[in-house]
């Protein structure tokens, strides 16, 4: 664990004691460092141990501590990756939704720099109301998971403290950059099932759910960006595909009509975009990144810095 990580933890501990005890952050860092780096103790245990030491010194009970309850890890939204963990968070209420059941007092979206996460607050927990747009320190919330999506639940033991500072909310989108090295099958002019709520892509005029149907045309590209270190599969929807290739759905349909073949559309697109460099941004869905924003990288590239490095090795 690095010095700066340790310092973050030390500052949090310092914060917990700030009302009751004058302690020195450097001293906390030293103690954590000994436990973590010399004795290979996990950071959560190290924190517990250090907190206990100070509690003993001050003759305090754990209950008197500000923050953390001593045991929970302070996590960010993006770190939530397992159900049934007790955590503390510093978040802004992004949205409040209408609860669908009486058992639920409040439901909505919380966010921090790393993204957003759904929260549920039970009626029987008898907690104060959260307000949209305000930031809070939440202690003792429990993580939950449903179909791969995580949420947090506020409960009877949760404490809610309104913060003076505003926690900024980032989005969940990711960015990828690289050369477009492949356009996968199912790209170009495609047909989708017209049945309500079914948008499956037809294979030879058949929907895997509804059989033979009169499909509706759509444009899509399933592409692969590759930066030489890793690959990212990206889906461009109709709008993004038109921006990327300059071919609109109407033009695509005309091209296919003229050629009596829909595959000419993907072939034409391939000529326009394969091998070029792009940067895309958007949320992920399964293994795909859904392109919301995209730009072709054409600007001049600076060789100076890397040339200096190359000469110096």
């Amino acid at each position, binding site marked *: 664990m690095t010095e700066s990580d340790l310092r973050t933890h030390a500052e949090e501990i310092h914060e917990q004691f700030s009302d009751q005890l004058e302690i020195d952050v450097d001293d906390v860092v030293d103690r954590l460092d000994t436990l973590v780096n010399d004795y290979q103790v996990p950071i959560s245990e190290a924190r517990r141990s250090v907190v206990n030491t100070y509690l003993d010194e001050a003759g305090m009970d754990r209950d008197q501590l500000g923050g953390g309850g001593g045991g929970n890890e302070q996590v960010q939204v993006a770190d939530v990756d397992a159900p049934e963990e007790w955590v503390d968070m510093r978040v802004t209420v992004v949205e409040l939704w209408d609860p669908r059941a009486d058992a639920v007092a409040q439901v909505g979206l919380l966010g921090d720099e790393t993204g957003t996460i759904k929260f549920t607050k039970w009626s029987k927990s008898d907690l104060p109301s959260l307000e949209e747009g305000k930031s809070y320190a939440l202690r003792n919330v429990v993580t939950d998971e449903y179909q791969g999506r995580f949420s947090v639940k506020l409960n009877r033991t949760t404490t809610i403290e309104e913060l003076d500072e505003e926690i900024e909310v980032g989005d969940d989108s990711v960015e990828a950059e690289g050369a477009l090295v492949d356009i996968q099958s199912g790209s170009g002019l495609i047909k989708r099932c017209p049945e309500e709520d079914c948008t499956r892509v037809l294979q030879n005029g058949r929907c895997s759910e509804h059989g033979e149907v009169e499909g509706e045309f759509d444009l899509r590209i399933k592409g692969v960006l*590759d930066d030489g270190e890793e690959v990212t599969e990206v889906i461009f929807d109709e709008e993004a595909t038109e921006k990327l290739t300059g071919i609109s759905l109407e033009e695509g349909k005309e091209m296919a009509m003229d050629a009596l073949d829909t595959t000419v559309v993907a072939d034409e697109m391939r000529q326009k975009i394969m*091998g070029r460099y792009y940067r895309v941004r958007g949320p992920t869905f399964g293994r795909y990144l859904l392109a919301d924003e995209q730009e072709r990288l054409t600007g001049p590239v600076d060789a100076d810095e890397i040339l200096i490095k190359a000469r110096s090795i």
Partner: protein
Amino acid sequence: MASTPTREVARRVFAREFNDASYTFKESDDDRAPVYVLLPTGQRANRVFVVGTLTETEDVGEDSEYWQGRVVDPNGDTFFMYAGQYQPDAASMLRELEPPAYVAVVGKPRTYETDEGDVNVSIRPESISEVDEATRDRWVVETAERTLDRIQRYADADLDDPAVDEYIAMADEEYDQLSVENYRQSVVGALESLQDEQAETSAD
């Protein structure tokens, strides 16, 4: 990150290093297991991405079309590629393109032994597309960066340490007569030629 473990990354490598990458291997005994060439700077490559100048195309097939393409990098070193009936898209691109042209090539490294016992390394293209100079320039800088990273890792590696990266150890073993210094020179040469071009363009 939305990456599939199954799709192989396309490595960036200049022609001089690529043509030296004569050692191939598989990671398992499975017939369908991917074949890798070992880059002399100590990284395996099952796919490459190359942007350069297509200088010559020729149908070298006897019974059926078999197209050879020569793509030159900024150092004047040549990538060779071959596309036949099993690579119809790439073959038709080589048939139709008029050299000289900037092309981007995605493909698999292939090796074959000549009657003289030399091992030649070439690319079996999955796709070839015509691109512009900006794309070529970006590839040159990117390839310089990636190559330099590999050289740095190679230089920092302690070959006596049993935990040393296995591909670096393999490169040391298989290519003991080659020096990574050659590839550092490729990097410097490629970047210098890029700067010269840019200086000429702005002087015009």
